[in-house]
């Protein structure tokens, strides 16, 4: 990003803006995110246990259908227009888990369906999730590299 230097007049105005800009209520938001994130994790754990018992899976394997179910629920909430309303108070509690990932893809898919399957949904599906995937893959590569090169295994 080009770092434009602020003139003294601009810098003075920016100070004024800071004075009037209300701060996000961090403590309240963090608390709501903690509680709602916890509830979502609890639901996820419920599904994991459910699949473990009913499908006779190991705890590790039971996580997969549970994640798929949570993605489905996130997508469903988005599709019926409820996700953004829940997210307005749950904040990071609902957007950090896999539900948020589902929302970022389904909301983009809904938004761009009018531009057609190829030019719209196909190309815009990852408009929000793209960065997550890109940097997720890059991080995974670096971690994998370190893991492979590290002696002692």
């Amino acid at each position, binding site marked *: 990003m080009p770092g434009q230097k602020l003139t003294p007049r601009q810098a003075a105005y920016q100070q004024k803006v800071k004075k009037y800009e209300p701060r996000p*209520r961090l403590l309240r938001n963090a608390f709501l995110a903690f509680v709602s994130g916890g509830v979502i994790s609890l639901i996820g754990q419920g599904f994991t246990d459910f699949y473990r018992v009913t499908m006779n899976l190991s705890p590790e394997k039971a996580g997969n259908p549970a994640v798929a179910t949570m993605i489905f629920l996130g997508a469903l909430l988005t599709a019926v227009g409820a996700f953004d309303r829940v*997210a307005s108070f749950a904040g990071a509690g609902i*957007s950090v888990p896999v539900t948020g990932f589902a929302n970022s893809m389904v*909301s983009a898919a809904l938004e761009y369906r*009018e531009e057609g399957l190829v030019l719209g949904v196909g190309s815009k599906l990852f408009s929000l999730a793209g960065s997550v995937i890109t940097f997720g893959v890059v991080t995974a590569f670096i971690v994998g590299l370190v893991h492979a090169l590290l002696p002692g295994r």
Partner: protein
Amino acid sequence: MGKKSGQQTFQFANPPMIISTGTVAGPFEGRGPLASEMDVILGDLHNGKTTFEQAERSMLCQACRLALDQASRSTSEVDLFLAGDLLNQIITSSFTALSLGIPYLGLYGACSTAAEGLALGSMLLDGGFCSTVLVATSSHNATAERQYRYPTEYGGQRRPYQQWTVTGAGAALLGYTGQGPRITAATIGKVVDLGCKDPLNLGAAMAPAAADTLYRHFQDTGWNPDSFDLILTGDLGEIGLKLCREELAEKGVHLGENFYDCGLLIYDREKQDVHAGASGCAAMGLVAFGKLYRQLQKGELSRVLLVATGALHSPTSYMQGENIPCIGHAVRIEA
């Protein structure tokens, strides 16, 4: 050069009248305190169309038709159509011009369009180039959000200083026949950049543009804030309005109780979760061509100064790290 006064103001020798207006509001705006002042309130954001863009277009077209019907004019009797909106390549305005079939000049001034259109239309009328001009503008929450920000259903927490893009359209027919309040002067703003980069806090970015144009208007005309019943900014919102007040106070211009913002009038901010207020071209479009116009007609207000501000950035300029340049245009309307 009889018509220019001072550095940026144009005084109209033969002030054009606002003959009629038309307003169309979205469903959310229809639940706000100004609902009774809107001509038409949509049942839903799609307005029976497939896309939100088509819905916005249908609102703008309907607002224009309402203004024409109210004055019993046909499209062929209008010399020029001046319109602008927020969408890329101002498609709403241009597609509306296609269906109206009136000679058209597209405007882009972002949320300053309502005042830009009134100023330009008045110049063309006072200059004798036209006898009737239709001015219109629109914004739509869903089309603006998807272009400038995120998909509509994306769940992110909104900042407390963020504003809510108004869904609505407003049109005004200007001319010399009939009755109506007159546009007596216009101050054209300069582009101002005070270093704001946050596209979620446009009120703060636009406030200096409003202050600059207001200051210019007072300097150029010799009028002062007390000369007006009401001085209305377009969509500065709560934070922008405070900043604008402070900017002017530093220059020795003290604005009183008669200074307010259209963006703070459209929603019931206690009940409607819109944070710092309304934004978008239609904020001024709906207020000025709705309630304000009627108050001027009834004589409840006699001198009003409108200052519409626009943020002239694009998603590209923002992503490339540029500041948000803003503009403000003022028009003086007298009953």
